[in-house]
């Protein structure tokens, strides 16, 4: 009989002394529940304090399985518009922690929430809890810039710090929401509860208050953008407006757009899928990340390169017979105006966007110097900006050898000079150039976030002489002011606007329409780029839109302009 006691003693030694630590841990896990207190995500405001992204209360319906009466299921099913077996399944999932509430339905309407509250006496164990759901009150306006958030993916959960990112956490998916996620999310707090075997809380062991996420203030003007957006509805386009006084981006329209609420509202998943699968690519921010051949608007770059290298002066002239030949027998490169512009200087060449002038300049410069200046002016690399931007492509002989395994032909140099060839630029890169031209190189780095804690590394200024910028400004003024200028449709009654147009051939299909300009000419306040994919003509399509942009801006900001 005593041997059985020895068996018990050995068993106790094994359980309590050898495995004691393991069981001690198990008992702690048993009794302590960590309740996460979610930190409210920071709001995102525009420059006037209008909300672009915030969190709204959502009514979530919960059931406490312990108090729940299964006889209420048919009633509840009708009330919540939820299949009966769904309710049964969710309640039964938690049968061993029957005091732990289970979520029945997320984000029900206020009316439904009220109905449930009214009928609470009959519906035992059912209650409404308010949770937060991200919302974007401006819908499509600023959607590309601000972005959206989404549920964390399995892969992200596996790689990210689990103390910050829980399995069901929301995380910035694009735009400001993604880049500034750590600022916006704050730090979740938590409550350590001691619970009994049925999950009923017994006492509070500890509590850490959540640290709310920081608010972000953007330079964007959502009122302006809301009025610009109708100008380009049903087009694939981008409008960028930059405040030259502050360097802040005022508007960044990209169409087609999307409603970011589709990504955060339960029950709009089919809309999400169609957005992501659409051939129109509504999620692409064309202004920041769209890459296109620039066409004639690139003549600004060619002009800078030629003036800076001393290849030409603004008064250097070339004869335009409507075409350009390397030799008497080589094939002609056409000017867009087949009758020819005659003898033109740089100003006139810019004004009328004479191809032949720039073919000649390009030939004199050579592909290498032209490409180097393009890169110096920020093409072919990402624009330093709060958000990721596309880098684009500036081709040269070396690139062609490495990538295309082919030699560089002189004909490619002259087409590069008028912005064709393999060139790919983003509207933001053009905006940057226009801004630098308008301000003698002072404004060359657009800003988006005004909060002090955000700093982006600043780039070196463009090393371009002010005379060069001045010559370009003169030419750009003539583009709009002259009756032969390609941008005359954008001429304004209230102030002088200077610009350069571009009509970029991109077969198959119509040409892309570019317009990059600034105003007032004498004391530039605004730089803008209007880009319309397959818009046929920079001067007509984009020029007309640009004029309306200027008018809308004037409407909103006239006290400052006049």
């Amino acid at each position, binding site marked *: 009989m005593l041997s059985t006691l020895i068996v018990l003693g050995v068993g106790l030694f094994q*359980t309590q002394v050898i495995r*004691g630590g393991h069981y*001690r841990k*198990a008992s702690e896990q048993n009794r302590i529940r960590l309740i996460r207190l979610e930190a409210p995500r920071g709001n995102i405001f525009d420059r006037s304090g209008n909300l672009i992204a915030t969190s709204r209360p959502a009514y979530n319906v919960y059931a406490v399985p312990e108090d729940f009466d299964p006889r209420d299921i048919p009633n509840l099913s009708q009330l919540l518009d939820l299949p009966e077996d769904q309710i049964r399944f969710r309640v039964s999932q938690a049968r061993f922690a029957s005091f732990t509430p289970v979520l029945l339905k997320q984000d029900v309407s206020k009316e439904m929430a009220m109905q449930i509250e009214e009928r609470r006496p009959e519906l035992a164990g059912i209650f409404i809890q308010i949770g937060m759901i991200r919302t974007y009150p401006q819908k499509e306006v600023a959607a590309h810039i601000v972005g959206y958030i989404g549920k964390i993916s399995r892969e992200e959960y596996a790689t990210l710090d689990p103390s910050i990112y829980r399995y069901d956490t929301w995380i910035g998916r694009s735009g400001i929401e993604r880049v500034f996620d750590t600022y916006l999310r704050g730090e979740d707090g938590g409550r350590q509860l*001691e619970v009994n075997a049925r999950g009923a809380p017994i006492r509070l062991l500890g509590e850490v208050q959540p640290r709310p996420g920081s608010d972000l203030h953007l330079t964007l003007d959502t009122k302006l953008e809301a009025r610009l957006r109708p100008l380009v509805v049903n087009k694939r386009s981008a409008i960028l407006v930059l405040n030259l006084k502050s360097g802040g981006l005022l508007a960044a329209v990209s169409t087609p757009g999307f409603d970011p609420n589709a990504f955060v509202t339960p029950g709009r998943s089919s809309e999400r899928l169609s957005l992501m699968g659409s051939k129109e690519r509504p999620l692409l921010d064309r202004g920041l990340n769209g890459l296109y051949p620039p066409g004639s608007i690139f003549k600004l770059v060619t002009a800078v390169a030629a003036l800076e290298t001393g290849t030409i002066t603004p008064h250097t002239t070339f004869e335009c017979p409507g075409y350009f030949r390397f030799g008497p027998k080589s094939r002609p490169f056409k000017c867009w105006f087949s009758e020819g512009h005659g003898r033109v200087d740089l100003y006139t060449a810019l004004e009328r966007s004479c191809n032949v002038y720039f073919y000649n300049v390009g030939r004199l410069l050579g592909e290498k110097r032209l490409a180097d200046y393009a890169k110096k002016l920020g093409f072919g690399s990402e624009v330093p900006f709060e958000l990721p931007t596309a880098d684009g492509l500036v081709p040269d002989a070396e690139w062609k050898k490495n990538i295309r395994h082919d030699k560089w032909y002189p004909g490619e140099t002259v087409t590069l000079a008028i912005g064709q060839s393999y060139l790919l630029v983003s509207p933001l890169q053009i905006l940057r150039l226009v801004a630098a031209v308008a301000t003698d190189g002072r404004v060359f780095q657009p800003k988006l976030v005004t909060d002090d804690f955000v700093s982006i590394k600043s780039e070196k200024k463009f090393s371009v002489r002010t005379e060069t910028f001045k010559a370009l400004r003169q030419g750009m003024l003539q583009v709009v002011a002259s009756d032969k200028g390609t941008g005359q449709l954008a001429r304004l009654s209230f102030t002088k606007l200077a610009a350069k147009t571009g009509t970029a051939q991109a077969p198959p299909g119509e040409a892309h329409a570019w317009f990059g300009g600034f105003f007032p000419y004498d004391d530039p306040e605004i730089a803008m780029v209007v880009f319309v994919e397959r818009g046929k003509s920079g001067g007509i399509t984009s020029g007309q839109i640009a004029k309306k942009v200027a008018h809308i801006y004037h409407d909103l900001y006239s006290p400052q302009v006049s």
Partner: protein
Amino acid sequence: MTSIVPRFLKGIYWPIVFLTVLLTVVGIITIYSASFRGSGDYASKQLVWFLLGLCVFFMTISVGYRSFLNLSYLFYAITIVLLIWVLILSEARSGAQRWIMIGSFAVQPSEFSKIATVLMLANFLSNRSAIQHQKRTLIATLVLVGVPAILVLKQPDLGSALVFTPVLVAMIFLWGAKLRYLISLFLAGAASLPLVWHVLKPYQQKRLLVFINPSIDPIGASYTAIQSKIAVGSGGLLGKGWLQGTQTQLDFVPEHHTDFIFSVIGEEFGFLGAIFLLFLFGLLIIYAFRIVDHTTDFRARLLALGIAMAFSFQIFVNIGMTIGLAPITGLPLPFISYGGSALVANFFAFGLLASIYKERSIF
């Protein structure tokens, strides 16, 4: 008058008194910890039962075990009637019931049926010769033990029903049953296991399966086994301290003031406390078997052995089930678990032992 008290206390086997009292006090302290957060004031109630038990203990000694042996058939018959009554009552209430209300006291007949059966067996076997008609006697014995065992099993109280088996085997062995009968009894028992299996309730079957393989049903039947093991294990060497056991205080271990009281001891007093308790039980078992050895009255030897066996078996199964060494069957830990009937019955049984010791030299 002055001579009454010394005479009353003369020849008392004090170590048994000391040990049973000490165990009961440990029990009451633990019951307090296991139940002070709940509604029932079990510790005070147990104290009352303890005082009653002590009275029973001393009365039993002063009456002497012989009288109880002489009346054993009557006791046996009464407990059988009570067991049947319990079954009828639970049929009527459509729920398992193990007790009968007498006034405001809940009496659990199965606790008394164990000791009554031991008394009856000791009397029955000692009145029959082991030399003649052994088979007939053994069959009668089987029936006599089988009736209360099956009635208890029907309650359903698998643990208490199982106690009858080691008691029966030990007593017929001492009586002088032939080895072949013991073997065939063992074989018959093994052969009837499938039959017994079907008598068991589904939850009892599950408990047994879980004992063999605890991972069968981790949130169902294994839950108690796992939680009680966590409770005992988490006590470690020194324990979490009195009233500090989270596993029991927060209801993770069910029945912690009755069947699973040892998990409270293991959790709150640790390995040292649990070993100390085992030491006390060990001493008590040693004294019980010493009484078996030192008695010349054959009836008394049979009785003492039956009591010692029942007691040892309950200790092993009860403590074993809290650490996964025995299946969960639902047996109280003698002197420790809350329960008036069990405590009084235990004091009665040890009163019989003490009486056997006291009267060992009377021929």
